[in-house]
């Protein structure tokens, strides 16, 4: 293995041919790569040989260098090499990306056949950065790279964003829902950079704005996360929140075409779900308990007789006296299936990668299905020695079926059915297959608007199909050595079609055998069709030059001109009165009542980009970037923004005055410092800056008449939101690279955040407040990424710990800020809360506290300012706790391998976030009727008999206020993934013509330690959301042919 630190001029990590072979010609790595012709005329010995891999396949392109001379060559297509040496004896060095370096001594003319062994660690050597690749040792920006291998791709993950959880320090990955098709994770690089869109830019193979969740994880080769200004500033105004660069696989460097099949199958269970009480008589007594707080028994909504009757008859007549276990009815064991076939290969002049995949997800909710088909074709061809062309094409197609926007619920205030899950009483029969009726309320006194979720999840489904095609072509040409011109043209297209055609149905009362008052879907149910299309074009012209001057000065410069153009349009139409329940296109309905809408918008961005890299003596690194962006969103005069950055790096372990001290334990060390700016225009609408009139139509008799109103007040000075990032980092490698560490500190200041300005109330009733460059937000944080890997005999192991801490601070706000959880010199959305004194146990407790209308059993609040009243002034601010996201994230990856067996664990953890546990399902102040109780309602509320109750009394006073009583710490430690695999030994497989075969089992979200009382500490969502996170168990295979 690695036995000594390489001293040659060409350390192995300079072999920059991993992904973009063409972009980093071998010539760079081997100055002078081939010796002058005169050299050969001298007396010399010839060494020959063949280089193969572990499977005895030839390895072309392996660098064979004569140690200490700078002489070298590369192997040919068959892995053969021939090298002449002046000296009669010496040492040959064999190096190849992805393989461990090897040395072999020779004496005289000889044949040395070498078997190179693959080395996973070496793959990190070249990192994909914006518009190119860079050698990792020379990186001065803060870039984290993840190589996506079969172990990541084999996890039963619904999308690529979820796969990034715990992989990169400083990248917060949060699962916000478990809903099939909507369970993507939110990605946030280095905290909340802006109160506007804070999502990072996703770039796939040079295509910005690709949906990360629609990429086949199996197609991904590597992911780079650009975190600071230097690494990201070539993306300028697109990169204020960092960039995630995804590179898909190609056939480059392959010698033999390969066919791979991956498949896995997972079953999915909830991590935790609401425990609705499937006991209607008991639920009615809960209503009685609530009513008893303020009413005489005679006035109670539910009578004892109703309850007794239900209790008795419920045991013998479940149709008429149901005790429905709703969760059981509306949820199911989900599953995720993932199948993927790919082929890849390469030759001297071309290479290809082709893959098709399908992902089929059945969510935990009935009728929540998601299917995603993916096809990819990547192809590169070398037209001439100095010319390349290539295409990248991805097409995907998804089908999503769902009932409500959040699955079980919908938080939109306009969808009144969206909150109704809290009204799913146990006393409703979901469906009677004999009569074909859906049940409604039956108990005397029950609210007819109680909810039968089953009928909604069966009969009012939305179906959404979406197709995307993302294609790009490039051509590059290097007319002279070091100079490359390249043109890329990218076209992405998407089309989305959603339809709903609800099935008429009405609540049935099985006791009286009549239809009740509630009509779930009326007889005139219609059809709604909604189409969204969009496309985007991107054209880049790039010119780059790289060369080495003298012996020790490497210089590369790059300039790019880029034009991006977005276009989206939408059209919707609906009609009432569908002709037949089986039809769903809008023509299949009567024309008497119909509506239609349509719109389009476009946006342009013109950019000039430049980058300069300079490396001296392989020790001193310098990089400068700029990007000059003009956006159509702003008015002329404010359209352009200049975003530039510079960085320096120092590989101090290369210094002769340091090396003697460090070389025994430290392989390499690099200090890097960067500073620069990025921009953001996501906070402003496409046409927001244009003076326009809005329609506000009026009626004249029966006729609609045109009306225009002036609703806009344009801020003519509005311009880019900009941020500056300072980053200082340290990359260290110890003990023969077994231990590596990357440490970063950053300080990012976002200036002029685009926000609607606050106007006088005299104007806000007429004008939309113009946006202004409003506030400054600072993010500071530290990140660490520490990896240890080693091998003891046959046993390989690796441990990676990554952690990050981020603190936000709102530094400036140009306008008045009222009291609330946004304030100057505080984190954005900090905890601002009443303090509680616990539950009053006695009247004594109530009298001892500040008067607040409480009774025993109510939560008492502290009178912090001592004015004898409980008002908003008694809230306390916590500067170190925030409501929306954790300050600290950490992850631990453990990999173990022994012979063919591999085991991996992933733990994730977070802390620093507190939020209220107040939602629609733990309501202690429920209404008089139709509340869906959980067992917690039965067990937890305080009462004279249950003094130690964990909840305050039912229907008490002020018990739903945001006090510390309901404030939960959302810290957690989660065993995110365990994976166990077995690779069948090669010699067994060879006989059946199979290259590789791995079988594995994996499980997600295995266990969580948290004190949070709600569904899941990772879940964001709103107070009606009930979709749990997924826990899954999967098995799968990888087969290589």
């Amino acid at each position, binding site marked *: 293995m690695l036995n000594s630190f390489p001293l040659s001029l060409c350390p192995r990590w300079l072999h920059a041919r991993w992904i973009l072979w063409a972009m980093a010609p071998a010539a760079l790595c081997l100055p002078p790569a081939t010796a002058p012709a005169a050299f050969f005329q001298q007396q010399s010995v010839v060494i020959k040989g063949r280089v193969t891999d572990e499977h005895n396949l030839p390895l072309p392109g392996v660098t064979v260098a004569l140690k200490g001379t700078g002489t070298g060559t590369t192997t040919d297509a068959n892995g053969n090499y021939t090298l002449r040496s002046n000296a009669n004896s010496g040492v040959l060095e064999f190096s190849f990306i992805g393989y461990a370096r090897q040395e072999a001594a020779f004496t005289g003319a000889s044949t040395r056949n070498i078997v190179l062994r693959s080395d996973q660690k070496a793959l990190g050597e070249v990192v994909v950065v914006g518009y190119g690749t860079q050698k990792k040792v020379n990186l001065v920006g803060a870039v984290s790279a993840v190589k996506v291998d079969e172990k990541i791709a084999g996890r039963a993950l619904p999308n690529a964003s979820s796969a990034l959880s715990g992989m990169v320090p400083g990248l917060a990955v949060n699962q916000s829902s478990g809903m099939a098709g909507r369970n993507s994770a939110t990605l946030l690089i280095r905290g909340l950079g802006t109160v506007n869109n804070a999502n990072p830019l996703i770039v796939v193979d040079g295509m910005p704005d690709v949906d990360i969740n629609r990429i086949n994880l199996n197609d991904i080769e590597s992911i780079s996360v650009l975190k600071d200004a230097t690494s990201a500033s070539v993306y300028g105004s697109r990169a204020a929140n960092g960039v995630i660069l995804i590179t898909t696989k190609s056939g480059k460097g392959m010698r033999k075409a390969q066919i791979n099949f991956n498949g896995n199958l997972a079953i999915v269970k909830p991590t935790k779900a609401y425990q609705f009480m499937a006991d209607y008589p008991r639920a009615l007594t809960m209503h009685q308990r609530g009513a008893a707080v303020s009413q005489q028994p005679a006035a109670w909504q539910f009578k004892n007789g109703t309850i007794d009757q239900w209790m008795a008859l419920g045991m013998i007549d479940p149709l008429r006296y149901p005790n429905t276990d709703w969760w059981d009815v509306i949820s199911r064991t989900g599953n995720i299936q993932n199948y993927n076939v790919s082929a890849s290969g390469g030759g001297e002049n071309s290479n290809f990668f082709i893959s098709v995949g399908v992902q089929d997800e059945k969510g935990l909710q009935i009728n929540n299905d998601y299917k995603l088909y993916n096809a990819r074709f990547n192809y590169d061809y070398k037209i001439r020695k100095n010319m390349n062309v290539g295409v990248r094409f991805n097409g995907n197609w998804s089908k999503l079926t769902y009932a409500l926007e959040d699955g079980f619920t919908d938080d939109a205030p306009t969808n009144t059915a969206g909150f109704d899950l809290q009204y799913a009483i146990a006393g409703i029969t979901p469906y009677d297959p004999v009569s074909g009726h859906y049940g409604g309320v039956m108990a005397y006194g029950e609210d007819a608007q109680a909810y039968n979720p089953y009928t909604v999840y069966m009969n009012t489904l939305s179906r959404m199909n979406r197709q995307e095609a993302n294609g790009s072509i490039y051509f590059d040409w290097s007319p002279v050595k070091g100079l490359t011109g390249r043109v890329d043209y990218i076209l992405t297209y998407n089309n989305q079609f959603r339809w709903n055609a609800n099935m008429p149905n009405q609540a049935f009362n099985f006791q009286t055998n009549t*239809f009740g008052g509630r009509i779930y879907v009326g*007889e005139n149910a219609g059809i709604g069709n909604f189409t969204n299309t969009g496309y985007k074009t991107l054209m880049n*012209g790039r010119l780059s030059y790289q060369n080495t001057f003298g012996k020790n000065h490497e210089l590369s410069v790059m300039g790019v001109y880029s034009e991006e153009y977005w276009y989206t349009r939408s059209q919707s139409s609906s009609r009432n009165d569908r002709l037949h329940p089986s039809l769903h296109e809008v023509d299949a309905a009567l024309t008497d009542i119909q509506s239609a809408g349509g719109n389009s918008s476009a946006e*342009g961005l013109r950019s000039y980009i430049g980058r300069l890299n300079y490396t001296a003596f392989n020790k001193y690194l310098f990089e400068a970037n700029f990007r000059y962006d003009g956006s159509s969103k702003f008015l002329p005069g404010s359209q352009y923004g200049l975003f530039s950055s510079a960085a320096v790096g120092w590989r101090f372990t290369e210094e002769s005055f340091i090396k003697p001290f460090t070389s025994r334990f430290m392989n390499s060390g690099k200090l890097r410092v960067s500073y620069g700016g990025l921009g953001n225009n996501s906070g402003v609408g496409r046409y927001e800056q244009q*003076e326009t009139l809005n329609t506000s*139509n009026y*009626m004249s008799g029966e006729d609609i008449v045109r009306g225009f*109103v*002036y609703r806009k007040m344009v801020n003519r000075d509005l311009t880019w939101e900009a941020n500056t990032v300072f980053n200082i980092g340290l990359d260290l490698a110890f003990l023969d690279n077994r231990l590596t560490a990357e440490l970063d500190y950053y300080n990012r200041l976002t200036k002029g955040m685009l926000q609607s300005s606050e106007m*006088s109330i005299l104007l806000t009733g007429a004008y939309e407040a113009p946006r202004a460059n409003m506030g400054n937000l600072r993010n500071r944080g530290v990140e660490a990424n520490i990896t240890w890997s080693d091998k003891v005999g046959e046993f390989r192991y690796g441990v990676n710990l990554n952690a990050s801490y981020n603190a936000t601070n709102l530094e400036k706000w140009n306008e008045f800020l009222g009291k609330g959880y946004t304030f100057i010199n505080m984190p954005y959305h900090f905890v601002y809360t009443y303090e509680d004194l616990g539950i009053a146990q006695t009247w004594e407790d109530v009298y001892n506290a500040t008067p607040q209308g409480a009774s025993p059993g109510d939560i008492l609040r502290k009178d912090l300012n001592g004015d004898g009243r409980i008002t908003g002034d008694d809230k306390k601010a916590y500067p170190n706790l925030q409501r929306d996201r954790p300050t600290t994230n950490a992850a631990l990856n453990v990999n173990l391998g022994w012979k063919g067996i591999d085991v991996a664990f992933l733990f994730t953890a977070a802390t620093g976030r507190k939020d209220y546990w107040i939602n629609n399902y733990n309501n202690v102040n429920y209404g008089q009727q139709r509340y869906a109780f959980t067992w917690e309602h039965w067990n937890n509320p305080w009462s004279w008999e249950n003094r130690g109750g964990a909840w305050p009394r039912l229907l008490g006073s002020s018990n739903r206020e945001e006090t510390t009583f309901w404030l939960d710490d959302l810290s957690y430690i989660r065993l995110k993934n365990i994976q166990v695999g077995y690779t069948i030994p090669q010699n067994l497989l060879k006989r059946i013509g199979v290259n590789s075969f791995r079988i594995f089992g994996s499980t997600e979200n295995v266990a969580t330690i948290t004190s949070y009382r709600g569904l899941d500490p990772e879940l964001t969502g709103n107070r009606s959301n009930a979709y749990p996170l997924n826990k899954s168990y999967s098995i799968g295979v990888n087969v290589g042919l």
Partner: protein
Amino acid sequence: MKKNQTIISLTAVLAGVIIFATSCVKDLLDQQPTTDLGANAFWKTEADATIALMGAYADVRPLFDRDYYFDGHGEYVRNRGNAVTNGNLQRGDAYHASSASSAYAPSGYGQYFDKMYRYLYGGVTRTNYVIENVQRMLPNATATSLPELERVIGEARLLRGMIYFRLISMWGDVPYFSKVINSNAEVADLARLPIGQVKDSIIADFDYAFDKLPPDASEPGRASKPAALAFRGKLQLYWACWNQFGWPELQGFVPDAAAATAAYNAAAEDFRKVINDYGLELFRGGEPGEIDPPGLAEKLPNYYYLFTPIANGDPEIIMSFAHGGTGTNQGEELMRDFAGRNHEGSQCWITPRYEIADRYQLISTGDFAPPLIPMNPATPGARTADRSAVNPQSYVDRDYRMKSTIQWDYEMSLGFASLKVTNWVPWIYKAGNQEVIINGEKYISYNTDGSNSGYVFRKFVRNTPGLGRSDGNYAWPVMRLADVYLMYAEATNAVNGPQPDAINLLNKIRHRGNLPPLSGTKTANKEVFFDAIEQERIIELIGEGHRGFDLRRWRALERVWGPPYGDAVLRIDTHGEIVSRYYQNTPERTYQQNYIFRIPPGERDRNPKLTQNTPWL
């Protein structure tokens, strides 16, 4: 080989050029909006003036078209919430309050109208925009187009006057501006203008409108001369009341008896013109129409139809805001607010209180009936007992407006689902959504938990299918001839006592309910005649949002609800249960806060010059 290379290079360069040339999007950084009209394309022709005015109408409409919520401030209507969509002006955001049930309760509402304040000023901006821009067109207007342009300005000024009138009647002194505002700085430190000055500006707006409007607006939903007159009269009447009865909560306002008299007279003058000069008459000639006995609703009195789309454009409705039905996105939500689930899934936010029933007089005597007796229907004989509130027969021989306005047990209304008639729906308090058999026919009873009094409204609830609960096309009346009759009677009575023409007008209104003319005792003096006027205002205008404003301008809260720190005033239901208590041990300060609304404190945080009304300090 070399040559080949050159060709390829050339091809490449050419391809590059082509790609560059064709991919470059024309005017990349100059993208024009696709559905919003560029401001520079407007104000080119005189037709634009009308289009801008229509926009102003559309945005001023939602400041007035849910005034029925305000009836919750009175003692006869309960508003348990409302159907507004938060954040959507056209769907009632001006009336939205963090707690709708508190905002429209009989007491403790004054702090819930920040949004109303905000949107009223929004309306000021909308009208200023029309006025200023059209005024700019006047110098170049031709003689033929000038009247039309001046009419547009007149309508906008009428709307602006109505808005400021609403503002002063709620908040007293208010900031005033009458030009287009181009930046926040222009209004950021605006102080409140004394009410008298604001009133004079409103009068000026109404004067201009009266001058320039046509005597009869041909297009329904647009204003005409009598509208301007009626509003000018109403403003004078309010001004007279404030001077007559005082407004101690409004700092700096000194009541002046002489000013009151002058304003009463001016108001009477304006109302007289409205009544006499434009040939206006009550809906369907003021005739009562036909009526069915209790339990049937095939034949309903004319008063009922006055509040259905049939009455759109009727001369009685002096000014209204038009609404459009399905597909126009301009529907009213009267059905959603006033009806129950059986009526297109409506929500029954607003219900009559039990106490209104005894206010309906007997046709036979022309005076009040002996009070109803609330009874629990479980009590034997309750459904048939004499005067029992749950006996439908207790409601015969009443003012026709009773059946037109409210429903008691076993009253019927037509149910609708999916825009079609379902069946007749019997209303039975506390027995909703049940199967009932009446005269051998099966019905499903009225389904709502919205009523706590025993009654639901019939007024404003359509009896024709075809429109969804949020798609009503009824033109909401903001000024009705009956109201003008009553205001005229009030103004003349205040100065001169009962006048024959005023008594005659009251009798016209009573005739609509098929009531006999007022007896001599009811017109004997100023005081009893005022009571008769108030009685007619309660019955005739219920659900139209007047009662709270009337109580405040008459300073009648103490009369109705008792003095400060008094016993509670109870509201009960037809079964005799107490359903709510108001003004129990209520401090004086609460009364003061009910008399004047709170200036939005958020605005005071920003604008130190903005003073607060004293009770809210």
